[in-house]
């Protein structure tokens, strides 16, 4: 049976890995290729890279870092951050990305999802949604969680899946950086609405949070986290051992 995936996420600025807490207060952590090799050796099932620079020079450094990762690490790589055109897809796919995640770019122009899926296949297009409760409703936020788009999250995600997104990353702004566990109600709402794989993001603080994620929302395919891995608070081998002990199927 298919295993649940554990995915470290690496935010990259000017070619270096950083992690924001609630999207603010970025800290410099490490070299992408070194961190990627470390995670792959530890049993990470996939890696996500978010380019959080917008400058041309930052993009160039990101491309160099990504190529270096893809030359040496043989697990799936997803790249996101500033993807707003087919040219952007092309740019990162040429550097070795397997999947490309779109967020604000899709909000600005949903046809990007359809065009990219048509050109590169559904499996290549990941919809990433930053979601926050507003008046008790799940709403989609743009630009790294800064702008309330007014879009209802589940409807938005369903629309993008119908346009061709082959996977969805749900990042709960409400739980991100809090380390109190994943946002199970939000994930349940999304999982019951779409039939593509759903990746949970935002809120992991300890190994037990992943156990609760996969038990609480069995339909979730993967758990994604950043800082707890970067700062060694959770080591992937120990995390997988605990999941296995609790009867959750993971890759050894």
């Amino acid at each position, binding site marked *: 049976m298919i295993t649940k995936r554990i995915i470290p996420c690496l935010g990259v600025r000017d070619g270096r890995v950083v992690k924001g807490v609630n999207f603010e207060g970025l800290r410099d952590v490490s070299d992408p290729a070194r961190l990627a090799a470390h995670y792959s050796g530890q049993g990470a099932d996939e890696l996500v890279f978010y380019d959080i620079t917008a400058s041309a020079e930052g993009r160039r450094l990101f491309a160099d870092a990504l190529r270096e990762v893809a030359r040496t690490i043989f697990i799936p790589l997803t790249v996101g951050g500033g993807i707003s055109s087919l040219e952007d897809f092309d740019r990162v796919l040429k550097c*070795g990305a397997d999947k490309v995640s779109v967020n604000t770019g899709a909000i600005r122009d949903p046809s990007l999802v359809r065009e990219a899926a048509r050109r590169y296949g559904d499996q290549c297009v990941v919809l990433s949604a930053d979601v926050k409760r507003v008046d008790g409703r799940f709403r989609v936020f743009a630009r790294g969680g800064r702008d309330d788009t007014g879009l209802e999250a589940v409807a938005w995600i369903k629309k993008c899946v119908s346009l061709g997104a082959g996977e969805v990353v749900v990042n709960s702004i409400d739980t991100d950086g809090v380390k109190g566990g994943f946002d199970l109600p939000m994930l349940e709402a999304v999982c019951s609405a779409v039939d593509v794989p759903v990746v949970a993001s935002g809120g992991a603080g300890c190994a037990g949070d992943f156990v609760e994620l996969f038990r609480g929302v069995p339909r979730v395919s993967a758990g994604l986290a950043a800082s707890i891995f970067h700062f060694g608070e959770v080591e992937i081998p120990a995390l997988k051992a605990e999941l296995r002990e609790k009867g959750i199927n993971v890759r*050894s």
Partner: protein
Amino acid sequence: MTAIVDYGVGNLFSLSSSLAAIGEEAAVTRDAGEIAAAQRVILPGVGAFADARRKLSESGLEGAVLSAAESGKPLLGICLGMQLLFERSYEYGEHAGLGLLRGVVAPLAGRIPAELPIPHMGWNALSIVRPGGILKYVSQGECVYFVHSYAAWGCEDSLCATAEYGAPVTAAVQRGNIYGCQFHPEKSSRAGLAILRAFCELGGGPC
């Protein structure tokens, strides 16, 4: 030397990097002569069947792939490249494949329980029914990385391994010198590199 057939479908960066990592000389090529000269040939592919099939014939490389198959040199189809080896696909209509293997390509939807996500995406365990070949360095139950919404069915005569996803899904096939894997060895870490190494150790036809 291993030729990776570049017919304009998908990203060959990881595949060529993974062959380099196991010390195999590989050429990403659109040159029929180079394919003919190679000891082994890999047919990659992602995306939609009909589109890939059209690009393979428009690139003029379909003949080179068929000649490689006929010459007896090892030919490995990966993911959609594997699906192209079969007789027919029912992905958005009905399309003829290369007919090198018996079986058809059809959706997972309807053949697996409805609650399972599609695509079948992630690491799944190999259930090896015919060991050896490209699987000779892989243990029973080892995980490899899949991402696909269609699969090969009715290919019992070439079946080497399946992966359980609500039903046994065709994972690896072989008939004579024709090999295929539905998963991505170039994305399957140690197990994937071991599979590529086994393929690159296959003797193959004259250089």
